[in-house]
């Protein structure tokens, strides 16, 4: 872990001489709006694709690659370059390669990284603007195909410091709330089991179950009241952030009444401070970062989160943390995940990436899924995550074409569906959600957590959001994510914390 970190940092500096090397090695192709060549290469062209999939999830990508290599045998051959570790590690690896003038063809990753490859001068960009490829009459996407893409996913690729589409989605995920069903009404398995013998309960329960899938309120309410009065838990599942906090208060209070207050318990755990703040800011219309004319002139103007609304909201969060209603990865010291608390029965709700479902499974209880509570009275917005793919500025035109063809195959409906589901992510095209693979997969929900994920995420898709991307956007994410721990752990005043964050951002701009 420390070593990857070391690598991260060092190889960052490799970029120092990237340009020099590139110029010498890539024949000075700097113009980033390329067009696809019509013909195919006579000799085999290698297409190096940098990826960092865990060993468990490589299966389908491998299949796609071999299928591709078969189809274009003798012309193109995709070669997977696996980089062990996180997306950070991947980012560094790519930097390293660029420095050495060894330009890959494709690479998966996050826009934040891509914007770094892009740089501040459009003519020095190491990656391509893809519009010409997308619109290419022969090889590009047809109008339907374009429409078929989930618009938010395509939109993400246009959210960079420069105009145009610079990256295409690979597969996507978002955040979701995992909750411990024991605490919540409706599916209160373990409590039910406990009361099963009780006739009074059996009657009420029957009343509910007879009503079928969605019982009417009064019968359910009766059941709940009964359960509550018998010191079981039967809380309402919160839909808004405010509800969630209120519920948390309730839970803590109940613990007290049952003299359990000395048990370590934090109702809500949020695994990413950055996502928490960025999404809540967005929902509440609190400015965070921008890509506009002003910021073009002065990069420090990208960062606009140093404002009173932001501080006010952060203050409420700090209060929640102090009241032990909420813990985040940040306030845990930054290197411990809240889902450990969740799986150890020390939290009732845990908000994290849909990709990380496996961390939230526990043998102790059944896990339920629900959308991340949103700001009351505002439009729900969910952070969009998951890797995209960018194309590198390569001297060989055939490489570009090969890369493009490969992406098309990867984005092809069934391929993409399989690929995404294997990683419990969402596929990138609407048509994917109609495929039998997808339907079968979703049909298996309730049998295992990873099958539930897509079942729950499919209706969140319309409310996805992303934050602007530019050189320094990653720092912005990190710093806003630090604010909570600055205040809660280091006793900074809110102003100090924000100042500190802003300062770092400015330095990184």
């Amino acid at each position: 872990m420390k070593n990857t970190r070391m690598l991260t940092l060092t190889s960052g500096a490799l970029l120092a001489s990237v340009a020099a090397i590139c110029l010498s090695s890539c024949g000075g192709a700097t113009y980033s709006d390329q067009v696809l060549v019509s013909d195919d290469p006579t000799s085999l062209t290698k297409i190096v694709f940098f990826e960092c999939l865990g060993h468990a999830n490589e299966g389908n990508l491998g299949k796609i690659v071999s299928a591709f290599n078969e189809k274009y045998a003798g012309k193109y051959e995709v070669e997977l370059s696996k980089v062990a570790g996180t997306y950070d590690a991947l980012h560094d690896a790519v930097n390293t390669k660029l420095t050495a003038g060894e330009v890959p063809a494709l690479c998966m990753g996050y826009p934040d990284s891509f914007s770094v490859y892009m740089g501040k001068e459009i003519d020095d960009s190491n990656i391509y603007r893809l519009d010409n490829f997308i619109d290419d009459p022969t090889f590009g996407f047809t109008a339907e195909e374009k429409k078929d893409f989930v618009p938010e996913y395509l939109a993400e690729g246009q959210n960079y410091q420069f105009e145009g589409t610079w990256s295409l989605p690979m597969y996507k995920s978002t955040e979701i709330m995992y909750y411990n069903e024991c605490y919540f009404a409706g599916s209160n398995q373990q409590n039910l089991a406990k009361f099963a013998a009780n006739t009074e309960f059996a009657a009420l329960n029957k009343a509910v179950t007879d009503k079928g899938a969605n019982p009417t309120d009064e019968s359910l309410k009766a059941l709940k009241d009964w359960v509550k009065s018998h010191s079981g838990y039967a809380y309402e599942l919160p839909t808004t952030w405010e509800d969630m906090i209120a519920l948390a208060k309730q839970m803590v209070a109940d613990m007290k009444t049952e003299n359990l207050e000395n048990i370590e318990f934090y109702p809500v755990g949020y695994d990413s401070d950055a996502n928490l703040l960025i999404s809540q800011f967005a929902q509440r219309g609190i400015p965070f970062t921008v890509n506009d004319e002003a910021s073009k002139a002065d990069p420090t103007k990208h960062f606009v989160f140093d404002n009173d609304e932001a501080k006010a909201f952060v203050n409420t969060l700090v209060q929640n943390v102090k009241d032990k209603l909420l813990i985040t990865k940040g306030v845990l010291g930054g290197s411990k995940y809240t889902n450990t608390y969740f799986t150890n029965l020390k939290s009732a709700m845990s908000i994290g990436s849909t990709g990380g479902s496996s961390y939230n499974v526990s043998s102790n209880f059944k896990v339920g899924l629900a959308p991340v509570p949103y700001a009351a009275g505002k439009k729900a917005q969910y952070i969009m995550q998951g890797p995209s793919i960018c194309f590198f500025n390569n001297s060989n035109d055939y490489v570009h074409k090969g890369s493009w063809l490969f992406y098309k195959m990867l984005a092809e409906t069934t391929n993409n569906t399989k690929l995404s589901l294997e990683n419990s992510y969402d596929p990138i095209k609407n048509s994917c959600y109609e495929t039998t693979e997808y339907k079968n997969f979703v049909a298996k929900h309730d049998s295992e957590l990873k099958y539930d994920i897509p079942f729950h995420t499919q209706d969140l898709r319309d409310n996805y959001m992303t934050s602007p991307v530019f050189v320094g956007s990653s720092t912005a994410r990190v710093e806003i994510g630090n604010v909570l721990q600055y205040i809660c752990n280091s006793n900074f005043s809110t102003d100090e914390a924000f100042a500190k964050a802003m300062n770092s951002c400015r330095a990184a701009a």
Partner: protein
Amino acid sequence: MESKNNWKAWLYLAPVIVLMAVFTLYPIVNTVVVSFLKDYNQINGSSKGFTFYNYQQILSPGGLFYEDVWLTALPNTLILTLITVPTSIILALFIAIGLNSIPFLKKIFQTVFFMPYVTNAIAIGMVFSVIFDTQTGIFNAIFGTYGFPWIFPVPGGATVAYGSALFSICFYIVWHSLPYKILIFLGGLQNVDQQYYDAAKIDAASRAKTIMKITVPLLSPQILYVMITSFIGAFKEYNSVIGLFGTNGGAFDKNTGPSSMKTMVFFIYDQIAKGKVQYASAAAVILFVIIMLFTAIQFKVSKKRVHY
């Protein structure tokens, strides 16, 4: 003869010189140069010319990194150095002397004490963060300080006092740096002539006195050597911080000291990661100067104390 020797000598040195020139000196020069470039652009290596701006930002109050360096990195580095180096040296001395004086189990102890040296640092760091974990750490279990935060804060509750974090990391650093020192000292001890001890015996010197007045002074060359190398090492401390507090260097109560355990090298890496190589280089040069100064001072001070 003289002159003949002359070119021969360079011949002998040739491999070292060549390799060093390519893989050590050139990078150093490069670092120094970059540290003086304004707005050094990592993408195309361009810059807005020669400047002291980078140094200003780090050194001058009100500079971008004044807080990071003067209020965090430098204090941390110095404190860590000043605590871990003496502690580890003294401990190592005692252990070495102990090992040298015991009649049996020598080999086993030697092996045990050398183990950390041959162990993959990757695993050890992780193991230690588990050991010191606030909620689940064995350290808390043993010392019965449940809920007292050593390296991670108690959620919503007590914050990590700088002191306790410092203790944890010093513990780790000392633990990790002991074996090598013990090795050197044992080596030195085995060179000490038994007659000195006989003489001391006859002169009715007590055990303690013999150690203080004879053993330790006779070890002074080793001690000086270890001191200098471990000072340098401590100034470059970084991995231990990552290993224990994670990639953000921890977050402690700022009223009890710096709010994180970020060291100078940590800062350097941080800047490189953000692509600000010029700042990183400047910091590296500054660190180099500091280390130089310290080493020089030690040599001066030790002139009297050390006998060769």
